[in-house]
């Protein structure tokens, strides 16, 4: 990725951006986020198949944002997240420059976010086959079986919130779980509280999740919590024709159509 390093250096040298966000080698053959501030830091930039973490998580963080204009190494999921965040007024052209990496691992520098959006729209979000199978299996179960499945799966969760930290859409300063007047979600890691936390997270991501699986990858217990968001993704498609992150379009769940289905309403 010499091209990436070269461009990052140029941007930092010229002062066009104050920080370049990308990946570097971490311990145990893993990659971690790199925040290049000095041109020389850019030498550490890498990009390969191990780079799956969603870097968009960082662009809403005050510590990063506060440094000035950012450039970011962005794979397709990262770009999707960026567009969704732009639609929610969290980033804009004045504070973010995108150094895109195509699915073919080629770098493209985008003039602005509108270009990023156009690029993102070339690819639709598709649920991977292995997940479709799992979802289908769950659909075939009786509600009671699904209930037991989820209670069992969610039971070990001790609310470390790694899923929340890894999710680019979870940028709220004060999450609902921290809302204590009233205490919506019970604090102890109890089956009920776990269930409510994950249900709430899923519904908050309805129409917003860009299916990057960062939450699942971050979970130390390997809980398949991305199944919940994938299910919401399928429902959005089935009932409302789906969605694509778009800077200007109205949000799927804050709008409606007069003919939304109501066959379940008496």
């Amino acid at each position, binding site marked *: 990725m010499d091209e990436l390093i070269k461009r990052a250096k140029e941007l930092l040298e010229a002062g066009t951006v104050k920080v370049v966000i990308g990946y570097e080698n971490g311990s145990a053959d893993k990659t971690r986020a790199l925040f290049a501030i000095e041109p020389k830091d850019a030498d550490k930039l890498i990009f390969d198949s191990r780079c799956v973490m969603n870097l968009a998580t960082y662009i809403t963080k005050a510590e990063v944002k506060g440094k000035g204009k950012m450039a970011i190494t962005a794979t397709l999921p990262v770009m999707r997240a960026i567009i969704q965040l732009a639609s*929610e*007024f*969290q980033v804009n052209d004045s504070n973010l420059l995108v150094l895109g990496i195509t699915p073919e691992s080629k770098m493209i520098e985008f003039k602005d976010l509108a270009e990023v959006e156009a690029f993102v729209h070339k690819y639709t979000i598709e649920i991977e086959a292995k997940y479709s199978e799992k979802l289908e299996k769950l659909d075939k179960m009786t509600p009671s079986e699904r209930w037991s499945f989820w209670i069992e799966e969610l039971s070990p969760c001790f609310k470390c919130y790694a899923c929340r930290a890894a999710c680019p859409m979870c*940028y*709220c*300063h004060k999450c609902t779980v921290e*809302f204590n007047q009233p205490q919506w979600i019970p604090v102890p890691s109890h089956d009920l509280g776990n269930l409510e936390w994950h249900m709430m997270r899923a519904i908050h991501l309805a129409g917003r999740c860009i299916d990057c699986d960062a939450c699942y990858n971050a979970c130390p217990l390997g809980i398949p919590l991305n199944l919940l968001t994938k299910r919401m993704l399928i429902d959005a498609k089935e009932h409302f024709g789906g969605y694509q992150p778009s800077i200007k379009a109205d*949000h799927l*769940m*804050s709008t409606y159509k007069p003919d939304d289905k109501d066959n379940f309403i008496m």
Partner: protein
Amino acid sequence: MSKIGVFVCHCGENISATVDCARVAETSGKLDGVAYSVDYKYMCSDPGQSLIKSAIKEKGLTGVVVAACSPRMHEPTFRKACAEAGLNPYMCEMANLREHVSWVHEKGEATTEKAIDLVRILVEKVKYNQSLNAIKVPVTKTALVIGGGIAGIQASLDIANTGHKVILIEKDPSIGGHMSQLSETFPTLDCSQCILTPRMVEVAQHPNITLYSYAELESVEGFIGNFKVKIRRKSKSIDEKLCTGCGLCTTKCPVKKIPSEFNEGLGMRTAIYVPFPQAVPNKPVIDREHCTYYLKGKCRICEKVCPIQAIRFDQEDTIEEVEIGAIVLATGFSVKQPDFFPEYGYGKYPDVITGLQFERLASASGPTLGEIRRPSDGKVPQNIVFVACAGSRDEAKGIPYCSKICCMYIAKHAMLYQHKVHGGKSYVFYMDIRAGGKNYEEFVRRAIEEDGVNYVRGRVSRIYEKNGKLIVKGVDTLLGAMPVDIEADMVVLATAGVANSDAEALAQKLHVSYDAYKFFAEAHPKLKPVETNTAGIFLAGACQSPRDIPESVSMASGAAVKVACLFSQDELTRDPLIAVVNRMAPPVYSSCVGCFLCVSACPYQAIEKEEIKNRAGEVIKTLARVNPGLCQGCGTCVAFCRTKSIDLQGYTHEQMYTEVMALLNEY
């Protein structure tokens, strides 16, 4: 620590008949935070309210729960009482023990338990109520009256005479409504047009009234005192300022065979037409659906004959935008049309007609100049049958209600027939004679005793033609249910009065409630008969339910007074039950992260962006802010906000959460 007072009302026996009110009061008294509880026969009465007021003062209550009827009925009453005793009115809540408990459940343990539950829920809610201050909004002192029948005319004149501006819109080319179609009026038999037309002229000439005929409501936004209304003025295809109403065009128009709406299809009109000679405004419109020029691109005869070149073929609809403080709905009613009575052959036999058609036959200005001649061959019917309740009181046909005006107009019709056709025989098939009204019963008696109308108690099963006669198969239930067949020359059906076909759409535009039959709903069946559930919108006449002329007129005057009361104030107060975005100490300022997804969820465009700046004037945070003037308090944003940063006063997160908790804890 809360000091809450619980006041349990017996509502006479309405509540106490099935709920043990003393036990409700006693049990509530033991609830945490309740300082005082009592039951009383009529809590809304003066002594009842005094009981609340003195308790507030003496016990230093911080909150009040009145367990009585629906809050939709008396919440304002009790909040006012609290305010008078120095307690913030929004610290008062009501538990609905009447409509939701005593009236819908049998006497018993479970019923009293439910009453106690409802009180407990509200006690818990009140603990989280906050003192709120009413919002003040200005008033635009112009009224919009929709519908130019007798009710709309009366309302417009009354409002205009109090010195306020009125805009009256009428969908037809002329005002006058159904009343202008009537022959004589019961119970006095004075000529309908003779008493109506002077009022119509007065409307046209009144300096405070702007009349838009051939116009319809396009849209409404805003709220009481501050409506923004768009009016569609349909193109009349003439220049109204130039037109003198000479009528030359209407005599020369070659399309002459259009069934006249005014004559209920019994007469014809031209494509460019004035609906009737006394029309106001007395200027023609072109009916584009029938005009040869609009259909085929050729003709323009009216344009050629018009002495002052007032025809405008290229005229388009215009949209008028006006600011309005109050709206009076006076859109009237319709009568059921053909195919509704296949067993009576309406629409199949030309001599089976509706009551409204009979009015046109009996009217001196009608197609027969007031002679009763049947439509098929113009003969004077020697035997005539009037069928009451044609559609009304007929659950199977979807109209279980009584149309109210038919009993009287049938008596009038039969009487007019007997006056006009000497030696003719008339029969009225009826089930009950509903003649409650000043001089009404006497009028019906006159028809029977003096004019010899044959009243037969029973309903007609079928009407069919045989050898040129209409065979009416009826029954006389007073003769041990004896079948009665009558050979008639003409049959008049007292067709049910129904809501207009566009009533539902109009109600939805205005956000007023309507009943199962699409008649507009009053805010309270007894005490708020001219108000709707939407503040600032009032009802007059038969759009609320079928009613006769005197009732429509009184209702119109009632609505006009309501408008005048509203316009007597320069400012209105509004409940402060609106959404608010939370604020916190710096550096957070608010838990709102400024995603602004709430903006598109808001039905009122009431959410704006607010920038928080530091001393240097730099924007450090952008938050949502609710415009209190625009917010109507639906709470759609509240349930949507991920960070729970917006809350709705009066229905806060804590209040609703607490209610749910209280609901089930001790179920």
